[in-house]
């Protein structure tokens, strides 16, 4: 049947600047640009454009511009062109609309409605260039009190401490599986975590043999598909994360299309080449909180209680109650993924409409755990759309122990968030298994970019903390007095547990 699909992007080539060098031709994996032998110059086919801006970045004369275009100027405020195009597509294919990356709808970003304090006059700021500023963070189960033996002159700690993960700053790389992203991307994350002093997460993809050497900085994930999970996998890691849910697609399982499952993926995930990697929801041996407790302790037994066990959940309506249950079930760390979390592939409707903002979820969980008197039993990692160091500081003030970054890490490596990961074509060499494209991501450069990002954020966070008159991140943790809201209703202020600016 005739398709009513129209390209959402327009490629503009300034002929005055184009030198027909054909760099755009060889760099576009979607086949937009080609050299026309008859015209003897480069031509572009807008229909295939994914809006990734690879050609724009690489054109030596800046001759290209790629813009979203209002290709359809019909409909009305309710029936927008995007809404119409989605219906056209579904009437042509009968299929579920797939999408990648995070929520694309205009829901409020609460980080942008929260403001930070600064010290003036009554409480002097601290100069981070002259005074030590502690950002070091420990994740794991903490005791309620410390028992110290003062007898015999020398102080001895009697309380047995649980194993902790030590981070140079409260940021970790979020779970991104080998399969969703390329090997070069995984390698870059592993190297950067190792060189900087934080951790990265294998996601559902298993751990590639050549990355075992970064094991001490690796969090391995045990997800519902149990891909790659076996003895060596657990032994190599610094911590084990049980993935119950993910912010981008709460309640449903993961999907890696068979086209992306090549020999390397097959060996690492331990599934046949070319088969779809479907992660079911739920874990088929976890149907209740008691089952989860059983799985947590099974992993602790298998790892000899030497590694913290993290449980990752998506932020949904009763996230506070769920979190309380998980902490009581024995998790050492609980990771909460807000609705802005990204993904390699998820149904568009679920990505855009399911889940709640991490800002509200975090505040609710922190408050609930404190009320239940169990806040110190587990550390909280917040995730889902963290963009910069200010978002991180605000999250810590709301109660997070640390933050996972996913999209931000990929962007640091070159991702332009075009959202076409589900096609398996990524011109930046990140969300693809195509060897021609993967080589474009040089791990030497990508890991340096990641380390630079963490260093930059480290300095910014120290400046912000210094301005607040604080010299240790521990003093900010859960300290909501340092936050004020603007443009928020009283209910929102109450849930966040902060006051209105001016109060």
């Amino acid at each position, binding site marked *: 049947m005739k398709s009513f699909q129209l390209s959402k992007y327009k490629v503009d080539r300034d002929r005055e600047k184009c030198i027909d060098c054909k760099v755009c031709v060889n760099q576009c994996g979607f086949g937009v640009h080609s050299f026309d032998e008859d015209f003897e110059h480069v031509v572009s086919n807008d229909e295939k454009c994914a809006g990734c801006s690879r050609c724009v970045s690489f054109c030596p*004369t800046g001759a290209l511009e790629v813009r979203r275009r209002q290709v359809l100027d019909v409909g009305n405020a309710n029936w927008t062109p995007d809404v119409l195009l989605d219906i056209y597509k579904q009437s042509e294919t009968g299929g579920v609309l797939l999408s990648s990356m995070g929520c694309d709808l205009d829901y409020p970003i609460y980080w942008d409605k929260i403001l930070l304090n600064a010290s003036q006059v009554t409480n002097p700021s601290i100069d981070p260039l002259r005074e030590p500023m502690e950002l070091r963070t420990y994740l794991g189960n903490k005791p309620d009190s410390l028992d110290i033996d003062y007898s015999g002159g020398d102080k001895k700690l009697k309380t047995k401490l649980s194993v902790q993960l030590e981070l140079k700053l409260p940021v970790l790389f979020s779970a991104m599986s080998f399969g969703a992203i390329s090997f070069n991307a995984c390698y870059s994350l592993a190297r950067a975590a190792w060189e900087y002093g934080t951790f990265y997460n294998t996601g559902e993809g298993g751990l590639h043999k050549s990355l075992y050497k970064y094991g001490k900085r690796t969090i391995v994930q045990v997800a519902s598909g149990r891909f790659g999970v076996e003895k060596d996998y657990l032994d190599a890691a610094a911590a084990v994360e049980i993935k119950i849910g993910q912010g981008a697609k709460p309640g449903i399982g993961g999907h890696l299309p068979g086209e992306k499952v090549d020999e390397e993926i097959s060996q690492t995930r331990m599934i046949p080449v070319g088969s779809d990697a479907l992660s079911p929801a739920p874990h088929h041996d976890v149907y209740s909180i008691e089952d989860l407790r059983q799985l947590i302790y099974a992993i602790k037994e298998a790892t000899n209680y030497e590694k913290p066990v993290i449980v990752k959940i998506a932020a949904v309506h009763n996230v506070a109650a769920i979190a309380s249950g998980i902490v009581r079930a024995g998790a050492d760390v609980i990771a909460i993924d807000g609705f802005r979390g990204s993904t390699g592939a998820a149904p568009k409707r679920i990505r855009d409409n399911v889940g709640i903002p991490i800002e509200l979820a975090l505040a609710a969980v922190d408050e609930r755990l404190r009320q239940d008197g169990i806040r110190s039993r587990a550390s909280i990692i917040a995730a889902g759309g963290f963009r910069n160091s200010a978002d991180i500081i605000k999250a810590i003030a709301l109660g997070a122990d640390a933050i996972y970054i996913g999209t931000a890490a990929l962007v640091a490596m070159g991702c332009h968030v075009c959202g076409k990961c589900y096609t398996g074509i990524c011109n930046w060499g990140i969300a693809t298994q195509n060897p021609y494209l993967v080589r474009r991501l040089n791990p030497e450069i990508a890991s340096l970019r990641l380390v630079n990002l963490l260093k930059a954020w480290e300095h910014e966070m120290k400046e912000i903390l210094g301005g607040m008159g604080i010299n240790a991140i521990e003093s900010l943790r859960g300290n909501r007095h340092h936050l004020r809201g603007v443009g928020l209703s009283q209910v929102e202020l109450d849930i966040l547990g902060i006051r209105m600016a001016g109060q």
Partner: protein
Amino acid sequence: MGCGICRIHCALSAAGTDDLLKAYRLNKLPASRIRIDENLIDKKHPLMFAIQCIQCEQPECVESCLTGAIHKDLKTGVVIINKDKCIGCWTCVLACPYSCIFPDISVSKRAVKCELCLDKESPPCVAGCPNNALIVEDERA
């Protein structure tokens, strides 16, 4: 990654100007001294790299040159074409087993090849490669 940006940096640097557009429009952009070689038949193992004159120990081009315009500098190891003696017959272009001598048809009308940009701090192809694929090494012990 076969992007070919090294060719553009090379040509521009040989043109003696910073203005790429001006050089292109006024037909002052000479031939690049580096080219891309690729074999994409096996999709699982695509092969591509930038190749330039490898400054052979026993250069075929030196032997083939009709006027003796090409010689190998014994100190630096670089094989150099003397622009004044080159008559543009392209015999060396045919003789090079790596196809790394190029006829500069648009500008100098002579044969050109990579001479390692020893007068510059860093060869423009090396500095300009977006994926750090080119490395310059001094092999003299």
